[in-house]
């Protein structure tokens, strides 16, 4: 293991307890230890209530851990948020209807006080990367769901942060669009070398995208397994039909089943 100051994310003994000491006490995260290397793609997977989104939110300093230490690129999550060391994308694109597509991408730069010309140039560069140059002056609602998500990803990359935190960004998209978006994300990752933490419900998605899949389990939310995905750096549509891919999917599925079990989980696996 590398030094904590060099890892993209370093979580040590993270607990998150809601309403601690009160009747409605819920342990959302129990003793979570995780290290994401710089440039690594790690997915968090598990059923609802397993704490995967909470872990992402602790990383992003959107909520505080009850106990434990977390560092993002060597600093606290709070400092990382202040320095904009991460970009974030959510299941909803969360674009502002009153801004054009380009000005939505400019938003984080505007908040950091970039000049008008500089942020315009940067936004156009990013829109080219997500292949939406022709839509720079459109309104967000004129775009399809997949295109809106691409705008959201461009926005999360705007300040060129070393880390991307993605909370089920493709969860609301149809299967075809979803697979296209996964290829897009892998391409962007190759071009930019970002470290990525990616929350998802989908086993094939986690396997296709990740270097490692972190399997989590609910009540209390905890990491139960970490499955490495030996598919190499170059992945394309053929990868989805390779034996290695199926083996990795099976490994993640069994890791999920082993710790959660029951018909509910088999149904969840079957849906993808």
């Amino acid at each position: 293991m590398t030094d904590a100051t060099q890892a993209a994310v370093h979580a040590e003994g993270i607990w998150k307890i809601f309403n601690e000491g009160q009747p409605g006490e819920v342990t959302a995260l129990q003793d979570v230890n995780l290290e994401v290397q710089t440039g690594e793609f790690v997915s968090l997977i598990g059923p609802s209530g397993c704490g995967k989104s909470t872990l992402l939110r602790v990383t992003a300093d959107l909520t505080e851990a009850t106990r434990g230490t977390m560092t993002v690129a060597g600093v606290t999550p709070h400092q990382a948020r202040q320095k904009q060391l991460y970009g974030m994308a959510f299941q909803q694109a969360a674009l502002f209807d009153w801004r054009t597509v380009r000005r939505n991408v400019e938003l984080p730069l505007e908040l950091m006080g970039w000049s008008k010309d500089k942020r315009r140039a940067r936004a156009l560069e990013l829109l080219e990367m997500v292949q939406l140059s022709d839509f720079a002056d459109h309104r967000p609602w004129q775009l399809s769901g997949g295109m809106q998500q691409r705008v959201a990803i461009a926005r999360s990359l705007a300040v060129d942060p070393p880390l991307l935190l993605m909370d089920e960004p493709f969860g609301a998209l149809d299967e075809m669009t979803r697979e296209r978006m996964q290829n897009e994300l892998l391409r962007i990752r190759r071009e930019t070398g970002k470290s990525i933490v990616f929350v998802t419900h989908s086993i094939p998605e986690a396997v296709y995208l990740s270097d490692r899949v972190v399997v989590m389990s609910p009540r209390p939310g905890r990491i139960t397994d970490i499955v490495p995905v030996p598919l190499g750096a170059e992945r394309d549509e053929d990868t989805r039909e390779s034996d290695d891919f199926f083996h990795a999917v099976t490994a993640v599925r069994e890791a999920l089943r082993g710790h959660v079990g029951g018909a509910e989980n088999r149904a969840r696996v079957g849906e993808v």
Partner: protein
Amino acid sequence: MTDRLKFIWPPIIIGVLVLAAWQAIVVVQDIQPYLLPAPSLIAENFFGDISLMWSTAIYTAITAFLGLVLGTIAGVLMAFLAQRLIVVNNLITPLAAGLAAVPIIALTPILNNMFSITSRTPRVLVTMIIVFFPMLVNVTRGLVQVQPVQLELMRSMNAAPRTILRVLRVPNAIPFFFTGLKIAAPLSVIAALVAEYFGGPQEGLGSRIASSAANTAYGRAWAYVVAAIITGLVFYLVTVALERWTTPWADRTRST
């Protein structure tokens, strides 16, 4: 264009039919003007004294406009305050319902005593108070009801509350502002007009409707009512035009 015509023709046809039926009933049944004057009589009075109609409507419109502007400013300022104070936005609706039950028009005689009855001030104040509430309620809603995920996004981008207000809450509230204004604008004309019923200068629509009716000039009283309807419509349509011009992004959700 043909789509638009489809929406325009039905109300016009129904309007013409209603007027024709009204005229027919009045003539056939020989109904007296003090009960119901015929549309022809109303039109005669309206067009016969068109310049008086105009100046009378303008007088009331100025009262309404002053009240509308002042009430809007007060409502918006209060909404910004409320946004800071109201944590649970569910509080706004019961608050609004409670305030809406206050009979503000009934305050006019009191205001007439507090301020000079010969001035426009009491009427402007009544109009202002009436306009204040729909503006307050709608703008507060717009400032408070932002998507939670948009708030999270702003926080992830390290935005201070003041920045969130400027970049997210205020633009989010603009369509709500116009929803409020579309209610408040015609309401301001009604408020200004009704406030005139309680004495004071006689130039306005409300005063003239009352005095015409008192002088058994029923056709004329109804002609003033028509002028009042037109004034209210103009206020509403100007608001709609202003809305379209300033919030082109809200086109897809707009119903009118």
